[in-house]
């Protein structure tokens, strides 16, 4: 009964990293914790989840959703608490604040092709290269470091194979068309390839594949059209040299 094999979790950890700030605040509030900066809220919620789900283990051998061993080892013998927490909805777009943020930025930058503060991802202050949160790729304490490296290599190869085996997807890559990150992640998940967000981005970068974090239905060209409309009214037409 206390075998070492991976246990099926009763309540898998919700995708805290994909939740937006109001939801995180709300969840913390249930535990009496005040609102914190977003990253800290995610960490805190994960910590709380582990304390309350002590025999949780990962779904697969390699991937974990957090450190395996709970901080107080003395409780590890107790039966798992069977809380029924609603599982988080699958992540469709990395940050739900995105569209409204972008709209604000767009209206502010109507006077230019793009203001220097425009960035396609998040708040101007933050780093857009961290646009996708790091969820499942945290430390893999259950296996050795060299095993982790090997597993990662296999997963990268699997992603590579996945792209090569899908002619439509590969055709997009070959024509430099941006891939929707959300779509790619869900397709990979459906194919059983579990790779953390940061590692996936690193892989796409190394292959020089452009990705788009745009929410479905709000693609770059529609944004661009809006901007072009406002600038043509105001622009000064210069004859080509």
């Amino acid at each position: 009964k206390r075998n070492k094999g991976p246990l099926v979790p009763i309540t898998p950890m919700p995708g805290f990293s994909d939740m937006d700030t109001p939801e995180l605040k709300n969840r913390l509030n249930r535990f009496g914790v005040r609102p914190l900066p977003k990253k800290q809220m995610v960490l805190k919620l994960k910590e709380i989840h582990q304390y309350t789900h002590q025999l949780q283990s990962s779904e697969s051998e390699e991937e974990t959703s957090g450190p395996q061993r709970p901080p107080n080892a003395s409780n590890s013998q107790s039966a798992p608490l069977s809380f029924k927490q609603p599982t988080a909805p699958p992540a469709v777009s990395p940050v739900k604040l995105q569209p409204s943020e972008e709209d604000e930025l767009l209206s502010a930058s109507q006077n230019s092709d793009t203001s220097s503060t425009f960035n396609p991802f998040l708040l101007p202050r933050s780093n857009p290269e961290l646009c996708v949160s790091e969820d499942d790729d945290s430390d893999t304490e259950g296996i050795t470091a060299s095993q982790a490296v090997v597993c990662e290599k296999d997963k990268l190869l699997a992603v590579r194979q996945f792209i090569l085996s899908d002619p439509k997807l590969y055709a997009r890559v070959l024509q430099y068309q941006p891939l929707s990150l959300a779509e790619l992640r869900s397709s990979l998940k459906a194919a059983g390839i579990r790779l953390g967000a940061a590692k996936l981005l690193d892989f796409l970068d190394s292959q020089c594949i452009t990705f788009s974090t745009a929410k479905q239905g709000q693609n770059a060209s529609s944004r661009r059209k809006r901007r072009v409309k406002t600038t043509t009214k105001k622009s000064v037409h210069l004859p080509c040299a």
Partner: protein
Amino acid sequence: MVVEVESFYGVYMLYCTNPKFKGRIYIGFTVNPERRIGQHNAGRHRGGAKRTSGRGPWEMVLIIHGFPSDIAALRFEWAWQHPHSSRRLSHVARRSRKESSLQFHWRVVSSMLRVAPWSRLPLTVRWLKQEYRMDFAPELQPPLHIPLTFGCVCAKTKPQQECKEQDERPVERCVLCGVFVKATDRLSCFHPSCQMVSHLICLAKHFLKAEPSHLLPVEGKCPGCHHSVLWGSLIRHKNGCYGDLEEISSSSSQSHWTDELQL
């Protein structure tokens, strides 16, 4: 000579010529450089950015173009503006005291071109004003396929595609696998008189034989005419952007631009 380019996505650098503002630099994105510089110098009420408004006069001295999409260009723009926040540029040192803003930004962009995801894109580095031009530092040479060039560039709207031509085109076979080629994945060589036609994926795999670990080719020899062609040029040709290809195909028949470098 002005080069006309369709489907233009560029990231540019402005230099302030006002002595009061001591060589300030501004980095921006545009699909039409000639219109854009006019907007900057006319001020924010005429489309220029707030940050440059009233702080001119500005000259557009350098532009990196050839980005295949606005997203790719915008990401490049952000990283150039924030090299120390970009995770791909953590190796780029901060501006030293003796470095002017112009020199610093040139150093940053030189580093960026050597790094993924930009190192395999079909980019062109273009100095628009000769008097500001700088060469790449010996240790910061760009990838071989990225040319350094000079002169003005004009964004051109693509003429309405010759769709009819495509429907009437005779059925063609891929030179590499022999199977019929559909218009959506058809690639053809842009060198005059070369008849090569192939599937997108077939030719990509052919080019990637030299770089098996990659998914996106950079360049290769056309199986028809054996000229060395850039993958980016083939894609632009497929999309109907011929403007800068004439420049490329005429120069490649003479010599590679690197031959003319004095090292």
